[in-house]
């Protein structure tokens, strides 16, 4: 099968966020990441579109996404001081949702920066 090519793709492994990477991929994995550094290549090649993990786990048992979302919402809603933390390896769009979540919950909000 012929590989598809994406030009000027963006690498989010580190803070440099290079946006000149050429990706060669099929439906399942990226085979080549031209112009990416060692770290970036590993980042692109190590993720696949395979279903390696269950959709969700609740108390270690496999669960559906809907169940997990409901459980997460309940835990966070019941807490007196919930913490929303991380947000490094995710998109700005998700980060905005996280800020909205902490705002709605009346909780704590923090990122890797505080480490």
């Amino acid at each position, binding site marked *: 099968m012929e590989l598809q090519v994406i030009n000027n793709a963006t690498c*989010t492994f580190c803070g440099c966020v290079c946006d000149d990477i050429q990706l060669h991929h099929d439906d399942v994995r990226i085979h080549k990441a031209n112009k990416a550094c060692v770290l970036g290549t590993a980042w692109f090649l190590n993720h696949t579109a395979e279903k390696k993990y269950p959709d969700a786990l609740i108390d*270690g048992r496999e669960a559906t*996404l809907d169940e997990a979302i409901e459980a997460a919402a309940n835990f966070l809603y019941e807490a007196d001081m919930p913490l929303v933390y991380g947000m490094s390896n995710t998109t700005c769009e998700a980060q905005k949702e996280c800020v909205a979540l902490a705002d709605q919950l009346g909780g704590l909000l923090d990122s890797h920066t505080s480490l």
Partner: protein
Amino acid sequence: MQKSKFLPRGRKDRTMVLVDIRETKSAKAADIFLQVRPGKDFELITILRALIKDRQVSDQAIAETGLTREVIDDLIRRMKGAKFGCVFFGMGLSMTRGKHMNSAALLTLAAEMNAFTKFVAMPMRGHGNVTGADVIMRWQTGYPFGISFSRGYPRYNPGEFSTVDVLVRGDCDAAFIIGADPGATMPQPAIDHLKRIPTIVLDPHVTHTSKLSRVHITTAPQGIAAPGTAYRMDELPMPLKPALKSPYPSDEEVVRRINEAIAKKPFWLPDGSQPQMLNAQV
């Protein structure tokens, strides 16, 4: 390397000085390597701040940083003689003893250098889009991290609301972790607290933190299978171009759905119980 009107030969017109406690691979790329004694960054930068203002510092004090007066004098001459100086600094500075004060020292030095020439400083951010989190929190809450909404509006106090401190003291009673794996990196007392309370993890992998959590949700990796935006460490947003279609939903979608699920429940502050706006905060 990019060329410019004033630096037409690219890299050749630039001088790179590397300061580190050991000679790393990066030293090969540098023109000058300065080996500073571990834990003496703050002292070295403070000496530089004094010396650029022509204040006297003893040879012995300089020697304690691991450098000699000749080397420091040469460095200052190069800094003052540069057309445009830039200091990049990383976690070796900001996460060792002195922490934020080490960064503050470097930023102050860069500001003070502008009495002689153009100088700037920029933190080298580690993980992917941590800059994006900073930037977004600033415009939505006014603060870059370490925020509490418990009084209904944003408050800021690193040390009080920052995650490691909160977890080690056992201050929070639920945790939502996204795009991070504190179970692998944080001190043991912090990890122990995550085990005690309901922890929820969103991650493309089942991580250390997932294993101690009550809820794990697998999500699509950003930039590879999830679209959106990421900020470069100089605070420029870059569009993401995912190559793969993930069998999992994006972080954005999952957090939005959690937000929607919570929004269906009664709001924690009863309607009308609070003023619209406070003029005096706590």
